[in-house]
């Protein structure tokens, strides 16, 4: 028998949902709010550029945040009734949704560029101090032989390659000093160019002030 969706030449959302992988690790709870929220609006309320989020979880983050905000409105409306248990239930729900939205790696700077990660240099043992440890795993560089070697960032900070690569795949800065490294993220690159232009403009102004004062 043809289903409702076939009859209306629509994609069955239940079948479609099965096809998409669940970014939250196998749990059956995967609210797809796109069915009752206009997509454009969801995208525009997301403060982070969706381009740098993994495509599977990108809209979900905005959706979680939006759903949390909706419940926030419910909560405000409930206040005069003073139903404590109901309040607490909504509070917990909102906290959980916000937590999901703020889950790993979705805050902060974009990933380092693929070519930067690929071209990380190899640091030979002789360049390492005897008691030097990787600040990510806290292991002495000399101690563990099973590792993929030591590398350094342009700021000269040393790391186990196995420790720094997962970080750079999330964020383009040095864990020790936060010095930035290149990113493929267009939004980040645009902002960086703008900041540089603003800096040059400010410096030019200072130079002029100095000349004419």
């Amino acid at each position, binding site marked *: 028998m043809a289903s409702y969706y076939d009859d209306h030449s629509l994609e069955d959302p239940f079948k479609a949902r099965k096809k998409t992988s669940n970014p939250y690790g196998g749990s059956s709870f995967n609210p797809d709010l796109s069915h009752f929220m206009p997509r454009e609006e969801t995208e525009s309320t997301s403060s982070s550029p969706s381009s740098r989020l993994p495509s599977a979880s990108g809209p979900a983050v905005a959706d979680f945040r939006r759903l949390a905000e909706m419940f926030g409105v419910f909560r405000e409306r409930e206040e005069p009734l003073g139903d404590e248990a109901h309040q607490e239930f909504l509070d917990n729900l909102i906290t959980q949704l916000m937590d999901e939205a703020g889950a*790993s790696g979705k805050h902060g*700077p974009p990933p380092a560029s693929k070519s930067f990660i690929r071209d990380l240099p190899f640091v030979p043992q002789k360049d390492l101090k005897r008691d030097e440890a990787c*600040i*990510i795993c806290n*292991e002495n560089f000399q101690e563990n032989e099973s590792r993929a070697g030591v590398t350094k960032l342009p700021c000269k900070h040393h790391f186990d390659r196995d420790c720094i690569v997962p970080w750079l795949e*999330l964020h383009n800065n040095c864990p020790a000093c*936060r010095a930035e490294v290149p990113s493929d993220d267009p939004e980040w690159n645009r902002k960086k160019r703008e900041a540089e232009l603003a800096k040059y403009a400010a410096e030019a102004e200072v130079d002029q002030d100095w000349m004419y004062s």
Partner: protein
Amino acid sequence: MALPKRIIKETERLLADPAPGISATSHEDNLRYFDVVIAGPNQSPFQGGIFKLELFLPEEYPMSPPKVRFLTKIYHPNIDKLGRICLDILKDKWSPALQIRTVLLSVQALLSSPNPDDPLANDVAQHWKENENAAIQTAQEWTRKYATA
């Protein structure tokens, strides 16, 4: 999955060499979940208070920050009524060079220096900005009421 060596080391050091005014103990049945107690810093409205928090290390730790929440009610512009903390290193300023110890020291420092210009609890921040003395008094009252054993 086995507990990373780094977490084991951190846990041991927290027990053997605790930071002043801070204790953190992991649950026996979940070594990623910590019961935390922070003493209200001297010369702060939270002095004399004993504040309970929960700290959880997600699977991605240390690539993503620990989740930390106050369990004891507290009147602070950067902590909301659910106990969530507005602290940059717990969000976009996280670095894997930070540890449970440094995170908890930062939370302790936040108690000493509330920042009403970056609020999480808007009504509290408003109060703090408009009448700091009265807000501090409320914070002291809450400390007495909720944070003393």
